[in-house]
């Protein structure tokens, strides 16, 4: 029986079903949707197929989807949900038509609503305000009018206003994506195992458990899957090494401690489709012969932790975790561990140390696959990698290998943020060019602005300048351009971004995150940061550029772990591609983009100033005062903190920023 006592897919259909936690049925997963398989009964069959239809299409074909992921909640999705719940019954729509789902990755539309009525095309509404909900619902369900929607699923010719609304597949942002691992995001209810199974979930596990562990590793090898955490190490190889260790105890860990600023695809996947991640983890555990798995998730992302925890509990309740999983004699359990948040935990040895209660990486080799958690062989995989494993095990390696390039197969999710029109998380085949991703899918920079650079890979990555935008996104091409794939955060910068400031920003991040164990990273990054600060303050010399280069080189070569090894990347890549900006700061003492506060000045144009005093009232530093003689206001440069409030607040635009 379901939680509320009603029948659901996870319940037994009739007394003939003998499945129990003690004596699990081997066909348990397939039986849920295709069943019953152990006996033939038309009534049971209808019960199951009706339920699947109910989940997929909603009661009588009515469906209202509201996304509940941290990003959409922040944008006001909970208020939208409340507004929907309030009006839904008065419109004659069954209240269970309202379904909370995860996030599709189209963050620029948050919070969105997806409506579906029988015979009508599904319609997607973006940036919905709670006050508009009633109007939108009425228009769609009562007047059968889809005008005002952002997109519709298809043209049926039955709804009014269809002509003015594009279909999703006509939009670049959807057409150019391949929704392979993110297929369920925004489709299933992340808090329901039933939903996941109705959409084909745990089929990969079912299939994997019918194979031998070696065959599973072989399958992953054929798919060509490489780690999605950044370095691109072949997943099968890591598993094989770990499997070949003689130790009886082995562990698998999913690294959900996403700390890369500007990357949130792991959070999105785990919040929208947590069971897929869990399924991948169980498969990994089976393949390497582990008895226990850990989900290492950041405490600062509470919703993600909560949903993963819930997924684990539900899976345990239904025998997908625990003893003798699906009757195949495989014992496996999972523990969720809350990380206290440290970027260095992306480094495998540091992550292990964090679970053990310390916090620093150690010299490799031996690799964790040989000597890992508590000295036992351990495999650590990224959230996205494991989600891919679950998907490709369900669909066969060919479905995965059909995408991508010769050396890097499959798809990858990227978070495109910064100065683009459509911020979001998009899944594309590896080998797609940056231009497609940034200009077509994400819509490019805002009107009147010029794209300057694309930063890939977060603090360990580098900046790719606009003229290299045709670089295909794969591990090798990006490395040649001075960046790395990283976890897939892409920050787009237009001409309002100062590249020296960007380098300084990333270095400050590394300085704060360096664990302090080895000298090159602890001291070297501080030297880099101090030198960059000096340059942004206009005190730099040409010699400083040499210091940046030589120190950067040594930090890269001599550091203990990958954090230090990649720390100088933002500096070295901006130095390589944007040397002229450094020179402008050093020689002309100017910041061309007008970002570095020490190099710019706010001034009130006395010809324009009307003496209203708004700026003086709003200046947080009290730096603006009235010049009694002229009656105009002036800024005291000594006191000014350069926050720019006066520029935005002046009613006559008298305040000017001087670069």
């Amino acid at each position, binding site marked *: 029986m379901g939680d509320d006592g009603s029948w659901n897919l996870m319940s037994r259909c009739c007394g003939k079903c003998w499945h129990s936690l003690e004596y699990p049925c081997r066909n348990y997963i397939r039986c849920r949707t295709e069943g019953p398989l152990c006996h033939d009964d038309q009534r049971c069959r209808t019960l199951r197929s009706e339920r699947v239809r109910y989940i997929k299409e909603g009661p009588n074909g009515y469906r209202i989807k509201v996304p509940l992921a941290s990003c959409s909640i922040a944008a006001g999705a909970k208020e939208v949900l409340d507004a929907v719940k309030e009006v839904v019954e008065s419109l004659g729509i069954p209240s269970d038509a309202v379904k909370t789902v995860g996030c599709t990755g189209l963050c620029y539309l948050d919070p969105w609503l997806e409506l579906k009525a029988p015979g009508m095309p599904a319609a997607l509404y973006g940036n919905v305000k709670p006050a508009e909900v009633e109007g939108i619902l009425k228009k769609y369900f009562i007047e059968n009018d889809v005008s005002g929607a952002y997109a519709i699923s298809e043209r049926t010719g039955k709804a009014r206003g269809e002509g003015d609304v594009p279909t999703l597949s006509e939009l670049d942002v959807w057409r150019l994506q391949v929704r392979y691992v993110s297929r369920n995001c925004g489709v299933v209810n992340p808090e329901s195992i039933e939903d996941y199974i109705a959409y084909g979930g745990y089929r990969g596990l079912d299939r994997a458990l019918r194979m031998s562990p070696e065959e599973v590793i072989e399958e992953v090898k054929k798919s060509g899957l490489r780690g999605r955490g950044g370095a691109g190490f072949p997943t099968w190889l890591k598993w094989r090494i770990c499997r070949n260790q003689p130790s009886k105890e082995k562990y698998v860990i999913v690294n959900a401690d996403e700390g890369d600023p500007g990357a949130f695809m792991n959070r999105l996947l785990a919040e929208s489709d947590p069971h897929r991640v869990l399924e991948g983890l169980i498969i990994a555990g089976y393949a390497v012969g582990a008895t226990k798995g850990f989900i290492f998730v950041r405490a600062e992302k509470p919703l993600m932790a909560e949903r993963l925890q819930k997924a684990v509990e539900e899976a345990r309740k239904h025998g997908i975790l625990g003893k003798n999983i699906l009757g195949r004699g495989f014992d496996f359990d999972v523990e969720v561990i809350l990380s206290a948040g440290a970027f260095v935990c992306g480094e495998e040895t540091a992550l292990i140390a964090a679970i053990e209660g310390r916090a620093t990486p150690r010299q490799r080799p031996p690799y964790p696959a040989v000597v890992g958690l508590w000295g036992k062989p351990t495999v650590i995989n990224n959230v996205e990698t494991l989600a891919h494993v679950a998907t490709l095990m369900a669909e066969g390696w060919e479905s995965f290998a059909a995408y991508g390039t010769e050396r890097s197969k499959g798809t990858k999710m990227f978070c495109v943020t910064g100065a683009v029109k459509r911020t979001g998380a998009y899944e594309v085949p590896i080998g797609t060019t940056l231009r497609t991703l940034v200009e077509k899918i994400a819509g490019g920079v805002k009107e009147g602005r010029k794209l300057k650079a694309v930063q890939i890979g977060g603090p360990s990555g580098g900046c790719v300048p606009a003229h290299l935008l045709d670089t295909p996104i794969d591990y090798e091409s990006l490395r040649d351009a001075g960046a790395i794939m990283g976890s897939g955060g892409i920050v787009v910068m237009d001409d309002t971004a100062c590249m020296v400031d960007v380098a300084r920003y990333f270095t400050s991040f590394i300085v704060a995150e360096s664990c302090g164990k080895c000298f090159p990273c602890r001291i070297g990054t501080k030297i880099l940061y101090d030198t960059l600060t000096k340059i942004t303050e206009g005190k730099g010399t040409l010699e400083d550029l040499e210091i940046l280069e*030589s120190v950067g080189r040594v930090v890269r070569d001599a550091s203990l772990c990958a954090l230090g090894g990649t720390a100088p990347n933002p500096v070295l890549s901006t130095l390589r591609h944007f040397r002229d900006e450094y020179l402008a700061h050093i020689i002309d003492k100017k910041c061309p983009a007008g970002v570095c506060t020490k190099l710019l000045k706010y001034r009130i144009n006395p010809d324009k100033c009307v003496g209203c005093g708004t700026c003086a009232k709003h200046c947080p530093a009290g730096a603006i005062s009235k010049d009694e003689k002229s009656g105009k206001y002036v800024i005291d440069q000594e006191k000014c903190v350069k926050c720019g409030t006066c520029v935005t607040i002046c009613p006559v635009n008298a305040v000017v920023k001087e670069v």
Partner: protein
Amino acid sequence: MVRVIVNGKEVHVPEGETILTALKKAGDAVPTLCFFGHMYREASCRMCLVELSNGKLVPACAYPVSDGLEVRTDTPRVREARRTVVEFILSIHRIRCWSCPRKGGNCELLKLATAYWVEGIPVCSSCPLYGRDCLVVKGEPCLGPITLAGCSDPCPSNGSPCIGCRGPVTRKDVLEAAAQFYVSNGVELRDVLEVASMFWEGLPNYDSLKASLEEAFKKALGGGED
């Protein structure tokens, strides 16, 4: 036993040992700082870096040997890395050699700094005159605190003050601390400069050095705390 090639020379070491053992066997020493036998082998200091045939720099003290491993201990990259690491360490080191208990030839940093030509450590670090024997304490304008180390200090060893023949230390914080030391022992700037001018007046940076010294003395006389 596995075969390891150190700088082209073949040595055999037991499996599970580190590169450092192989280096010792081959007689090619590398500097180590943080390594302490079985008590500490966490590869923090990165002084013992060696280059592998695949171009990677790895710490000899923690990297396990494998059969056919090729190791080079003295390539330009290794030297640059080590030198920079010494620079890093010195950059956060509070150099006060005249009052350091390791003074008199016991200083690891002095050895590394001289071996890799990193400036910053003054002659005092190797000077054998302790406490009340110190010439500055006796009020003499000995240039030890502001002269580059590395000469194995023949002058102070024989009781005569250092005359700065190896050239000056230019690090501002060292000069300031040294000025403090001079002032507290009643040595005047005039006397120091008189000795210093002998060897240093011809240096291109003498003027700026003089200015820094003057400033440091002024700060010290102004009652600035060390």
